[in-house]
């Protein structure tokens, strides 16, 4: 049924994963028990969504119950922004995770067991379904993260063997206990990990002279990527600058035109953003800037001609 659901929800934001109940990885199975509570008997299969906010066990109308759980969770707005990047480092999968807390709660391990997780799975049928979890590293969020604040971590799997690296994927997420020290966990948001890269947005800026702000600002470039990167900017034109000239990723650079150095007519320049960080990460992206400046020279000439005394 889960494989069937994975096909049915292929175009939705749902990740179906399978774990071995006898060899728990990370804190995943603990989350199911926290969601279940205690008492009674439980039977396989155990399933959960959103770190145990919704759980089920034993024989049920699988299709109806599982789809109901997924549909209910899809309707809930996320409570965090999550960015995740993953890279193979030797036989380890490394996940770079950054979370912005959008919930009203301050996240901390001490207050509400807040934890960042990564799961690495292989598209391969080992037990029942075709998405088998291979590792689930985690770290507790020790320093409190207030609403609006960010948290970043690097999570490593143990050395992985006997896996097809071409079929491995990773996701990252953060969960916490809304009730405090006890009760079910809830997942704030999750993200599929993508290969590390530096992103710039926009990739081109085009303005006319009439649109130039008083301070020469023509736009802002947002830089994204793994949080372990630092970036610097270089310009190929005297009239084009980026400020600040460097910083941490993610970040923003204001692009400015130096009016005094801007030639008349159409000028095109290029800003090169370079970023590097641990694990040999190094990227370069360019932003092109085009300014159609008023022909100040001809305006001056016209003024001079008007001022010239007549015969």
């Amino acid at each position: 049924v889960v494989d069937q659901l994975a096909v049915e929800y292929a175009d939705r934001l749902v990740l179906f994963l399978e774990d071995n109940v006898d060899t728990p990885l990370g804190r995943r199975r603990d989350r199911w028990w926290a969601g279940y509570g205690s008492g009674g008997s439980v039977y396989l299969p155990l399933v959960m969504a959103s770190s145990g906010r919704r759980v089920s066990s034993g024989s049920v109308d699988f299709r109806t119950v599982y789809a109901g759980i997924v549909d209910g969770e899809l309707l809930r707005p996320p409570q965090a922004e999550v960015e995740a990047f993953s890279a193979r480092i030797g036989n380890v999968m490394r996940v770079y995770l950054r979370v912005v807390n959008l919930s009203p709660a301050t996240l901390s391990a001490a207050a509400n067991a807040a934890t960042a997780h990564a799961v690495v799975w292989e598209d391969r049928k080992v037990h029942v379904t075709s998405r088998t979890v291979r590792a689930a590293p985690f770290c507790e969020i020790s320093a409190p993260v207030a609403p609006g604040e960010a948290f970043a971590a690097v999570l490593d799997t143990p050395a992985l063997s006997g896996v097809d690296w071409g079929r491995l994927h990773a996701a990252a997420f953060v969960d916490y206990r809304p009730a405090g020290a006890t009760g079910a966990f809830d997942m704030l948001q999750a993200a599929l990990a993508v290969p590390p890269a530096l992103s710039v947005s926009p990739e081109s800026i085009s303005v006319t002279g009439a649109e130039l702000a008083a301070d020469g600002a023509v736009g802002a470039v947002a830089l994204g990527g793994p949080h372990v990167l630092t970036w610097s900017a270089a310009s190929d034109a005297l009239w084009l600058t980026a400020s600040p000239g460097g910083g941490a990723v993610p970040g923003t650079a204001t692009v400015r035109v130096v009016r005094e150095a801007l030639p008349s007519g159409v000028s095109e320049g290029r800003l090169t953003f370079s970023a590097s960080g641990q694990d040999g990460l190094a990227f370069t992206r360019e932003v092109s800037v085009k300014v159609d400046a008023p022909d100040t020279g001809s305006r001056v000439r016209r003024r001079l001609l008007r001022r010239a005394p007549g015969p």
Partner: protein
Amino acid sequence: VTRTSLTLWLIVTAAVASLALGEDLRDLAVASEGRTVWKSSVPPPRLVVFEEFSRPT
């Protein structure tokens, strides 16, 4: 054409284009000075993680 009317025209044009493309209008912001930017102020939808714990057979 004043800058205000030009900006209004840009907003309307962008909104119509956005509808045509099926984009969420909340993601669209038209800055002053005639610069149009796409904002990602609205977080993306929730990615639901559904986990099954089973025993190898």
